[in-house]
């Protein structure tokens, strides 16, 4: 699904103090499955995920999605991809503070109406939120609940790829296990990329990409 070629990301590239977030490497990702990108803080794993998902443009190299070059595509094309084919779970949950849990899921939906709303509720239920919590704002939810709302938001359009940056960071062990179970199930016929520094949640992954200092150190 993704072909990453010679990708590099350099911050402050115009100055003498260049900082290589990604050092230039190739990587190939399958069409389906749960892929874990693991590495210590600052290893470039989140940057890699953002570059693959079109949120950031790499300084050099290319990302091919289903054979099409996405790094050189237009803003509109990248927006369409993110909207229709990708789902995101960010490191911080980034929920809209004034919206309810349900509205936070629906805000990403490409469809409207009762059917979409039911679908959003089902996702929230599946992720362990009770109906009483659907109408609560993020400030009234725990960190774990917020993260589960963010995961439901990522899944609402049934995207072909989910990019999850530390999806279990604010969850207890049981909830973290449940979330990974859901992501694993989703990855049966989709691709799920999970960026984490917690090796314990990657026990069930199909592919592990280990990163170190801006480079892929191991793919297993």
């Amino acid at each position, binding site marked *: 699904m993704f072909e990453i070629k010679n990708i590099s990301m350099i911050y402050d590239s115009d100055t003498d103090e260049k900082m290589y977030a990604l050092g230039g490497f190739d990587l190939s990702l399958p069409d389906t499955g749960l892929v874990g990108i693991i590495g210590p803080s600052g290893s470039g794993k989140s940057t890699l995920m953002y570059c693959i998902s079109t949120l950031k443009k790499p300084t050099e190299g290319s990302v091919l999605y289903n054979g099409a070059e996405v790094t050189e595509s237009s803003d509109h094309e990248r*927006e369409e991809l*993110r909207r229709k084919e990708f789902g995101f779970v960010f490191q*911080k949950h*980034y929920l809209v503070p004034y919206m309810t849990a349900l509205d936070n899921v629906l*805000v*990403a939906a490409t469809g409207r109406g009762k059917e979409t709303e039911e679908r959003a509720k089902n996702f929230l239920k599946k992720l362990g939120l009770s109906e009483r919590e659907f109408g609560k704002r993020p400030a009234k939810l725990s960190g774990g609940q917020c993260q589960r709302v963010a995961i439901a938001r990522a899944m609402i359009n049934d995207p072909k790829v989910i990019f999850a940056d530390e999806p279990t960071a604010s969850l207890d062990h049981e909830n973290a296990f449940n979330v990974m179970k859901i992501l694993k199930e989703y990855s049966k016929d989709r691709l799920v990329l999970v960026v984490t520094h917690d090796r314990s949640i990657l026990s069930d992954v199909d592919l592990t990409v280990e990163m170190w200092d801006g480079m892929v150190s191991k793919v297993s």
Partner: protein
Amino acid sequence: MKSGLSASKYIRNNKRTCFVLIIALALTFMAMYVVNYLLMVTGESFKPIYLEMPKKVTYLAVTAETLGVNAEDYPDGGYGKATAESRNELMNRLKQTDGIRDAYYNQVLNARYSAVFGSTGFSFPLVEPEKIPEFLEHFNAELIEGEMPKGDGEILCDSVIMKNASFSVGDWFFENMYGKTFKVVGVISSPEMVCIGTPNGYNNTGWYITILTDEAHSDFSKIADQIGLKLNALDSVDDAVHNRESFKEDVEDVMDSVNSVILLVVIIFLAISVLVAYVSFMRNRVNEYCLYASIGYSKKEIYGMIMREMGIMFGVGVLLGALSAIVTMAVLDATLIRPAGLLSAWWYPQHIISILAAYAAVVGVLQIPILVTVFRIRTIDLMED
């Protein structure tokens, strides 16, 4: 693809913040409209005097020269008599002219009429009691209180003027101007707010030929042409044309200027305050916009949502402003305007257009912070910062 960015969600979930802006917009609308209404009370109240009354009566004062009388031709006296004869001859010609009901030579008296801003005066004839019914009939005026003048110095006064000057039947008519010379003996009601009375000696208020006309003959220059009367600069003609011009210059133009200045000042203050409020709005929501961009919404869709939110707030503000303006005008009408014998109108579409245009200008000014914010939207990058 349908956009899932709802404009109403922010407003529904941030009622207090949005309420402040909506109320500011509503109060501004209300204030601007009500100020215009109060200014126009003057215009509306003066309309019967300036625009309606002169359609039915013209006051004419002509010099002896216009009458064709030269003082040098009467070295041994008789100048006054010749002038009077010539004036009578003119009045006879006027009476025979189409559209003129009657013409008589009489003293006039002035009535004062004060509006919210400024006051005006108008003349009315002092005639013999037997002439009064004809005058009342000409103006479709009816006696609603008191009695018809019988003796000297008795006045019939329109009910609106009565209220305006706080007169009652039996009061002295503008005692501060005429002393205890004229007494109000009756109240009349007429669309043109006329008064009429009987003379009481010589009052130095002027002698005029009072010409009762129909509306089609209220332009005296045409009548003068018709009867071959050549007017000069010293002649005084108080007809419908002259009054229309005076109304435009002395009332409408002045009110328009005042209105424009008030509108400009209010809008400048509104624009500044709304601009400050919106900069704060935008700043608080940058992360939200970046999230939308990250999950695939275009800047155009985000801009559209911001504009729709603004549209709703401005729309509700205008609606509430209009409603509160109606309530305020009703209260002012009942407590201040009508009891003071003043007239008002509530519907000024041109002024509504001016206010809406001013609001559109404010929306235009708000494009600066909005476009700057939208231009600066990134995806996750800015959120991380």
